[in-house]
């Protein structure tokens, strides 16, 4: 299984990426997806995402490797956008495919939880009035990530 990992400025095509994990094969029984979208909270005009080139790819690679270790995946895709993202646009795409739904759904949840807390991305919010501010990390994200810390049965 060769995971597909990309960090890019361009929007992603979720349907095409999903098709790529199931086309031409008959061993995939479940394909789970998560798409993180940019909301227009408080008059937000755009999100600007910064990352640490080099470390980002390494960190995502390690998170995906951990998922592959824990669940029997037939395919896995992580695409994270950087640069300026407008409300309504996708920020991150996570796809996990497996023979059965539990592995696909659980690993997809694991991947996005760890991506939010263990990959070096930073969001800055730009508002219509010209204001801007860095998004602060949330304890709820740490708690979500921590639920995967316990050894699996």
């Amino acid at each position, binding site marked *: 299984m060769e995971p597909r990992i990309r960090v890019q400025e361009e929007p992603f095509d979720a349907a095409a990426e999903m098709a790529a994990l199931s086309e031409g094969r008959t061993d995939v029984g479940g394909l789970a997806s998560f798409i*993180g979208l940019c909301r227009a909270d408080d008059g937000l005009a755009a999100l600007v*995402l*910064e*990352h*640490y080139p*080099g*470390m980002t790819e*390494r960190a995502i690679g390690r998170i995906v490797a951990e998922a592959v270790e824990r669940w029997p995946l037939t395919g896995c895709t992580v695409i*994270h956008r950087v640069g300026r993202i407008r409300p309504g646009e996708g*920020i*991150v795409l996570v796809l996990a495919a497996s023979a059965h739904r539990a592995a696909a759904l659980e690993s997809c949840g694991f991947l*996005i939880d760890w*991506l*939010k*807390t*263990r*990959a*070096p*991305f*930073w*969001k*800055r919010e730009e508002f219509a009035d010209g204001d801007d501010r*860095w*998004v*602060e*990390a949330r304890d709820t*994200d740490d708690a979500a990530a921590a639920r995967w810390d316990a050894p699996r049965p």
Partner: protein
Amino acid sequence: MRILYFAWLRQKTGIAEETVSPPETVRDVAGLIAWLAVQSPGHADAFAQARQVRAAVNQEFARPGDPVAPGDEVAFFPPVTGG
């Protein structure tokens, strides 16, 4: 030693990257922060909220007690907010 700054640490220091030669007494991340923090008012401002500063040594997340050495790439940034 190559130092990188991201997000508001980059804005506060006013630089994305610098090469420094700290004294030999600087042996870990915490020591490096203490030394960098007195290099300029911008550095002092960037490191003032110590609890909001995270680090990576050679592209691996690092803790205050983790060692740093000449030739290392050390990055400073706020807690991550991707996804």
